[in-house]
């Protein structure tokens, strides 16, 4: 049987990789994909804890996380398309329009 902390460790590793992608990459598309990775690693934790503590709420929360992720990606890619149309850049550093 797989011990619980293996799943938690996998979640930690994927979370760190995703966080590195969000913080270190300059390409907006890759940043968004790393964000998906972060949310997925959290989902692994939710479902692993739900399984090992015999509680369905872990899976319920994972379902809600997936639904919110779908909404977030739709809006983020809409913003991205509008941004590329107006500024024609994909670099995070070039988007400083909101700076005072």
């Amino acid at each position: 049987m797989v011990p619980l902390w293996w799943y938690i460790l996998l979640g930690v590793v994927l979370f760190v990789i995703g966080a590195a992608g969000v913080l270190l990459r300059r390409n907006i598309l890759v940043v968004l994909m790393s964000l998906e990775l972060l949310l997925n690693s959290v989902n692994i934790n939710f479902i692993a804890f739900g399984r090992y503590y015999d509680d369905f709420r872990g899976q319920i929360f994972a379902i809600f996380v997936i639904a919110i992720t779908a909404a977030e990606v739709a809006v983020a890619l809409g913003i991205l398309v509008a941004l590329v149309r107006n500024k024609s850049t994909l670099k995070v550093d070039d988007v400083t329009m909101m700076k005072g």
Partner: protein
Amino acid sequence: MDQGFFLLFATVSVITALAVVLARNPVHSALALMACFLQISAIFVLLEAPFLAVIQIFVYVGAIMVLFLFVIMMIDVREAVLQRFVPGGNLPALVLVALLGCEMVALVLWSDRFAVAEPAAMGGGDNIRQLSTTLFADYLLPFEVASVILLAALVGAIVLARKESG
């Protein structure tokens, strides 16, 4: 048996996740992310959450990644391909991520709260029935709120991506 499968899926998912972050071409990143999502859905099957595994494949691999690939197709990524990715380019962020990783791994390994024995297997087909009963009985209001959020995101995405013709 289970451990072998878990190690296989975990290794492949970590390798593909690294490929997502390190690949220079966003299309390669998207394909690696797709492979990573498939491994994670296999891990959901190991955790006896088959419904979540199917949802994972439908929503992430089927919808979100296709959305990503469509956007990559629409916009010009050739300039993005040319820029090199240097991991040392942002040293404070790199140090921060390394510290975060070390801290979380240390906490997981030191804590004895994760040494829970695996409970007996849940009753096969009853699993999904109990899940849906919990979802639609105890979590009905959050479910409805989630559907409203999805509708708002749909309208918002259409408004944002529309050409400004007035």
